[in-house]
């Protein structure tokens, strides 16, 4: 029984989530957001427990779950994102009578993602996927009276259900051909699958299922609409957290279980990576809503990470894994900045429309110097400018791409980074050079704390990357068995 303690982070979060749900009954609508502190403490405890178990390598529940460097790494990603989102949401949910549900759903979605990270069996993986998806569907539509939020949730739900169906279809083919749903078991029996055209069908179906979460083109179309319409804190969760769930699932299923079929999916991922990053960056240029721009930028970022699948050397996987961590901090941070700007705009003018419009970023350096500086670091990090986390991850990922001989792929990726600089620089230009439309105001504390934490993450990984690279390497080793 002792090793069930390995699931302590999940157990803690489950208990905290249930406690919040119950406690919500006893709070008035004006102070329900206090429950956010409880969620934050729970997440922090889970983070410490996960870091404490970083070196474990064991399986649980008849081999359906595994605790290894990869799962722990991704759990840290998920918990960190949720923690940042939770801290910021303490302000966002102020005075909202559904705050208890908000935090409960947030924790449940985190647990779902953590289950996916640990899944060693396709059924477990699917269950985790659905837990996270269903919770986030509800969260995306949290602003019940906002039609845009409703639209966001509905689109996300419909496309999400389709993808789940496709994923299940793929899983059933894999199961049919190999006779098992266990990931190591599939890897052992993948011979028949690899030699049959069914293998290709299964791969296509699974890419469609995971690609939806990863927001790879053409499965990305829900993402801009959803990220834009959803509450900004939830956009951060979707872009930085739930997107990574697709990646960890794909890492386990493709790189471990379906390694024998790699000729099938490596080319597919290379093509998807190129289309995804190019399309994401080109379309991002035209956006005037910062939220939507970040959504497309996050599509483009998924394209970069997908390179790891196309290259599939230990170093490339290290880069891909590290990239997910870096992206978690940069993207969460950037979305939280959008959230705090939205707060600023609404406090200027109650009836403001288009609160995520680029014009609202004018003169931000004067109005909120800390936020503006953080945003500058985040967008430069997203475009891969040093010394930031974004640069470090790109460096490792692209250098391994070149080393493996896929020079064209790396060159396209780097040209894409240069292209993206154009729209990121525009945000900085608006913040630092254009005149402000109001006086200096101070950020609400929870937002400020979350933004500073994200900023610290981006800069620490950029300046002292060694421990992160080391753990990313350990995680990649799990995949290369």
């Amino acid at each position, binding site marked *: 029984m002792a090793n069930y303690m390995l699931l302590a982070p999940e157990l803690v979060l489950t208990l905290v989530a249930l406690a919040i749900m119950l406690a919500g009954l006893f709070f008035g609508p004006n102070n329900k957001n206090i429950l956010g502190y409880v969620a934050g403490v729970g997440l922090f405890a889970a983070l410490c427990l996960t870091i404490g178990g970083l070196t474990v390598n064991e399986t649980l529940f008849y081999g359906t779950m595994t605790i290894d460097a990869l799962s722990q790494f991704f759990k840290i990603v998920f918990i960190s994102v949720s923690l940042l989102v939770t801290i910021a949401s303490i302000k966002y949910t102020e005075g909202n009578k559904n705050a208890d549900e908000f935090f409960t759903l947030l924790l449940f979605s985190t647990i779902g993602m953590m289950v996916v990270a640990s899944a060693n069996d396709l059924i477990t993986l699917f269950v985790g996927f659905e837990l996270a998806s269903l919770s986030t569907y509800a969260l995306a539509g949290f602003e019940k009276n906002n039609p845009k939020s409703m639209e966001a949730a509905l689109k996300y739900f419909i496309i999400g259900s389709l993808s789940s169906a496709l994923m299940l279809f793929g899983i059933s083919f894999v199961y049919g051909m190999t006779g098992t749903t266990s990931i190591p078991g599939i890897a052992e029996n993948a011979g028949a699958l690899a030699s049959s055209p069914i293998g290709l069908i299964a791969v296509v179906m699974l890419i*469609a299922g995971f690609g939806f979460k990863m927001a790879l083109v053409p499965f990305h179309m829900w993402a801009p609409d959803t990220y834009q319409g959803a509450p900004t804190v939830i956009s951060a969760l979707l872009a930085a957290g739930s997107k990574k769930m697709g990646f960890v699932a794909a890492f386990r299923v493709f790189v471990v279980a379906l390694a024998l079929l790699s000729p099938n999916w490596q080319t597919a991922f290379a093509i998807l990576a190129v289309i995804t990053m190019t399309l994401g960056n080109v379309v*991002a240029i035209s956006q005037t809503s910062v939220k939507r721009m970040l959504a497309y930028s996050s599509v483009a970022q998924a394209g970069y990470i997908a390179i790891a699948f196309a290259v599939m050397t230990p170093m490339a996987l290290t880069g891909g894994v590290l990239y997910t961590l870096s992206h978690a901090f940069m993207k969460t941070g950037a979305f939280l900045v959008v959230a705090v700007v939205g707060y600023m705009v609404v406090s200027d003018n109650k009836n403001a429309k288009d609160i995520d419009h680029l014009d609202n970023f004018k003169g931000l350096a004067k109005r909120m110097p800390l936020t503006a500086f953080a945003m500058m670091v985040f967008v430069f990090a997203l475009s891969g400018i040093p010394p930031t986390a974004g640069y470090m991850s790109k460096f490792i990922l692209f250098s391994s791409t070149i080393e493996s001989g896929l020079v064209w792929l790396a060159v396209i990726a780097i*040209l894409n980074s240069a292209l993206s*600089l154009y729209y990121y620089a525009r945000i900085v230009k608006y913040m630092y050079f254009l005149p402000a439309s109001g006086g200096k105001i101070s950020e609400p504390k929870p937002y400020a704390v979350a933004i500073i934490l994200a900023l610290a993450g981006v800069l620490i990984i950029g300046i002292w990357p060694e421990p992160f690279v080391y753990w990313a390497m350990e995680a990649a080793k799990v995949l290369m068995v």
Partner: protein
Amino acid sequence: MDSFNAIALAIFLPFIFAGLIPLANKVFKQYIGWFAVAGALTIFLLIAKVAPIIIHGDTVSGGVSWLPSVGLEFSIYADGLSMLIGFLASGIGVIIMSYSNGYMSQKEDLPRYYKWLLLFMGSMIGMVFSANTIQLFIFWELTSITSFMLIGYWRNKPESIYGATKSLVLTASGGLVMFAGFLLLSSITGTFDIPTILHSESLISAIHEHKFFLLTLTLIFIGAAAKSAQGPFYVWLPNAMEAPTPVSAFLHSATMVKAGIYLVARIHPIFSGTDAWFYLVAGTGMATMVVAGFLAFRQTDIKAILAYSTISQLGYLMTMYGYTTQHEPGIGVAAATFHLLNHATFKACLFLVAGIVAHEASTRDIRKLGGLRREMPITFIIASIGALSMAGIPPLNGFLSKEMFYESSIEMGAAIGSPYTILIPAIAVLGGVFTFAYSIKLIDGIFLGKRHDDELPNHIHDPGATMLIPAAFLAFLVILFGLVPSIPVHNIVEPTTAGILLEHVELHVKLWHGFTPSLFMTMFTFIIGLLVYSKYDAIATWQDRFNERHSAVSINYHYDAVVNNARSSAHKISAIIQPGTVKTYMSAVLALIVVLVFIPIVLLGANIIPHTLNFNFNIAPYEILLMLLMVIAAIAATILPGYLPAIIALSALGYMVSMLFIYLKAPDLALTQVLVETLSTIIFLLAIVKIPQKFKETISKTTFARDAIISVAIASTVFIMLINATQGIVSPFESLSHYFIENSLSLAGGHNIVNVIIVDFRGYDTLGEISVLCLAALGVYNLIHSRSEEK
């Protein structure tokens, strides 16, 4: 303190000083500039402390562990080359920051100004002392960002914002391209460490023979050219002149634009000695030198003249570093290095003068200026020294390095042979002629000639000492280096050249070196230069007219077109691929799947459809009837008008599925299906009353056809896949039923196997199902309840 620590401190101190600025501002207030000067001076002294070692011919290197997982250190390499640029960055930094104390009004946001200047200085020093490509790139991009912030310092001017953005987009993306080149370089050599490559002949020859040699060189060179405003990338530099003048003097003439030159010099031993190097580096340099020198004529803003002049002078440097042959890879290296130093002195001096003139006369337009020699005698003398040195007049330092330039041009021409023997020196002279003409124009236009009283303020005078002394000091250096060339040559040029060529170098530069061919070229330059100068205004007018008629010639025109159209084109693209309806989104996903599954079947001829179908035709009549009804219900659900009938058809379909389950002897499954179907129908009905009851959608024929095609295609794809799955490609599994038959009595004590499975073997599963149903029922109750409350 050893040398390594001194250099490391020199890299990080500027960042620390910059971080201290907000605090220091409380103490120093309007004198914050002197705090920054003290910082820069400290850095200068730290580098000077290491200088004797390097002048002696040694190098300083070392590193501390930074990213061991990928074999990267934070490492420092100091040789003559890095020392030269390090001196420029800190020394000119001291001069510029002192000058800024007079130039910048105290109403300005001074802490921000000095903070970014110090950050820039730190990045520049970090860049030149970096021993590995990755670290070099990091500081390289930092210089781009700090330059961006400094160009945009005056936030209220749209031009300065335009200039800032342009410089960032071009230099930082150039840097990213260079980064690709660095990654290629390290994949060829297996190391990021520059000195390792420089000192290893086997690695260098491996690079020369590699199939990506040209690609690597080109990518790295693009980064250098973008930074140093060479070739088509020059367009950002004139716009960068919107920065405060001390910034222009510091970043955009003396230091940052030298970063590209630095890089070219740094990789010189790796790539030189090849045709590619000559054509790429020297070719770009010569084209830039001539074109930019020529375009300077058109400019009316004195800073713009200086900007074009800087581009042209950087072209000289590129050209000289590009001179190479297989036997003598570094023909122009010594000349280039000396000119690099000289250019930094006279050009910074001229920029400071431009700042003084703008400050005192309130204009930088050369058409409005004139005749200031009497009112500003000292400024006039300083400006003349700087401009004459640029023109190459003896005994100033510009003369000496230009002589060396001509000398190396002759040598290079002779080395390749006809027609280059004449062509290369001729191009060099042409560049010299243009330089001569605009240098004279600067003196003539500002200080000589008539005073335009209606355009200028009444009283103009020399500025105070804070602004005059830095400029005068630079002018003093110009004369000193000209009269006593052995000082800079021995202390700076020789070690730098040695650092680039990796061998011991002794140079003999004298003011009078006899009647050499290069001296005749110089005299020829002066004569032609004077002739060209007599037609200066006519040429400028012709350029203006030409530009009006053929605007497509200008690179700026294309830059603006691309940038301005980028958003509208991107908008068009996004309108096509992201129309916003869920139907399109789903069609895209489904279409992709159809395509990906059909391609292997049709194109690759994969054996996916079984040749013989092996159906078990023991189908009872009920089954056929049920299935027929199911098909009818499905079709009805799609074509019935209105939601209510469609929902009823859909639930009919669901109930028939559960009947099928009963027939297939799965009563538990059937039961669940009936319950789920009932609940979902109720929820459907409750929700449906809230929305309009009729379909009002009108679908065009093309849309209908498209949707039909996609539906049929996806249905047939799924059909094929299912046929495939049932036809024995998938091996049948062993049935589980015998396990339950054997164990249901012994383990669970029940005779009814189905019951035992439901309540015992799968007890938790059943519990879960029950909870789900309860929750769903609660939801239904809530829906009904809330409706009755509303009424």
